[in-house]
């Protein structure tokens, strides 16, 4: 059995207090909306709500909880923009589901795994967003692998740091 695989009994399942469950996603949304006022590139390359979605989904290791977390955060993110509500919702629902499903099967505690997973999830998120925005809403979207990988790496590195701090809020279920 590969060393990174763990059985369902071996994995740790975590839960979070209500203030953290509500406050951290809201803080991420707030920062995502506020920081670009000073640093315009922030919104282009970084997606804090996505990182929070991935973190909560992987820590809880419950697909339903993960997809619902992703859906709520994504919908809130949609509401702050002017495009139809649901594009980010769908993308983050998929990511939340996949992250929590993988969290059950993989060791997602070490930094290397987190880095690669976050990079992968960012690309999946971008692909789903691109598909929905272009296919359903007819938004003009340009896909760029270089930009996607670059932004994915930026998110992955930020995610590793962010997860380290968010780990402090974990409580054993």
């Amino acid at each position: 059995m590969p060393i990174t695989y763990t059985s369902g009994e071996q994995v740790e399942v975590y839960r979070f207090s209500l203030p953290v469950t509500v406050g951290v996603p809201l803080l991420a949304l707030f920062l995502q909306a506020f920081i670009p006022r000073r640093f315009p590139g922030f919104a282009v390359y970084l997606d804090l709500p996505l990182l929070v979605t991935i973190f909560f989904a992987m820590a809880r290791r419950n697909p339903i909880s993960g997809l619902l977390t992703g859906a709520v955060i994504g919908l809130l993110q949609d509401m702050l923009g002017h495009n139809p509500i649901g594009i980010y919702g769908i993308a983050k629902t998929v990511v939340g589901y996949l992250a929590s499903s993988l969290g059950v099967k993989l060791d997602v505690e070490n930094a290397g795994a987190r880095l690669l997973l976050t990079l992968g999830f960012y690309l999946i998120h971008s692909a789903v967003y691109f598909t929905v925005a272009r296919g359903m809403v007819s938004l003009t979207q340009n896909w760029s692998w270089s930009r996607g990988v670059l932004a994915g790496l930026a998110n992955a590195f930020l995610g590793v740091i962010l997860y380290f701090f968010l780990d402090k809020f974990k409580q054993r279920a």
Partner: protein
Amino acid sequence: MESILGRYRNLVILVGVLFLQILGLAVQVKRSSDTENTRLIRVWAVDMVTPFERVLIWAQNGTGGLWHNYIYLRGVRAENRQLKDQIEQLRLEQVRLNEDAVQAHRLQALLAFKEQFISKTVAAQVIGSSGTDTSRILYIDKGDKDHLKRDMAVITSDGVVGKVLQVFPSVSQVLLINDQSSGVGTILEKSRLQGFLKGAANGEVALEGVMSDEQVAPGEKALTSGGDQIFPKGLLIGTVTNVATGKDLFLNIAIKPAVNLSKLEEVLVVVERQERQATTEDLGRVRAADILARRLPSVPDKPPVTANSPSPAPAGSVAAPGTASRTDSPVAAPKQVSTNAAGLTKPAKSPSASESVARPQVASGSGQGRQNSTQSATPNAAPPTTAGRPDAVTTSKPASAAPTQPKPRAAQSNPAPAKVAPAVLPAQPDPANAQDSPH
């Protein structure tokens, strides 16, 4: 069946949640008038986030204000001096522009044009953004309570920013001109070609709708055309940076916005515009006899004799260089300023009669009429000053009508040359003119 649902419970819920969201998206996309029914949940989301942004902005401004206004004042004195110089330059520029404005106003009146004015603006502070690059909007701290409404133009002193997209009780959403769903009626300043400005997915701005057989040069300014009924005509949008042949026989014209859209802090929302018929009431009536008189030679006016002044200062000597630049009354009526400016920028060479009629307002300054008379009497005099009007000498409008004219009525109703001339003359003292002035 139950066992299948139980086995694939997670997947079923995932599909259910996705289906609901797709359904919601389809409903929104189908709806023609955007966002009216989704407004409530947007209000909730905005209400959740914007109070924190307001507090943070308030704290940031407070701290920054304390530091910059009371502590960190290094270089302020030099900057102050520089700004004063700049004000002087701008005053001169204003004189020149006022003259053009008066002429344009008169022509508009003749053609029965309707004029648009920005009569009221509300200053607002940018407190946040959407946080994504696919939705280029800003949040400002003014809303319904401040009488903001949808589709109001948002500008800065540099140019156009966007329009109000949604109005909430105390905040509003502003759609930037570089968003892909925005569109601004645009006209190019020199070529007068019209098109519409569109944002692209990558945040760049392009002018569309200009045929590829037209000539557009990089560097040309793009202004609002007023055709969209949102932005008043003539506001600066940006500058053409690149022109390339695009698809469907249209040019791809890249525009660099005049405003740095990614670093906005304060904006102005145009909440009220006025439209009125252009009139010549405030410009003074011009009789046919006055126009005719400009074509005919006449005796120069005598300098005015006032009872209070021991030695009546002639118009030319009023505007003594040096003293003029230090005047504390820069708020002379634009009308007066412009007419005097026109008089001072006249070349003294033989003008044609048609030119003089084309610029009837040039003779409306009481002081200038006398000075010009002197100039015409000395045809070899030194070229007149071009203060604030660097292009006056080479222009096709030599503004030469005045030399032998009587004072028009507008000038007679404003016999205050001493207040006006100082704003005109300071930059380039012209001894020749001073000497030529009647004493």
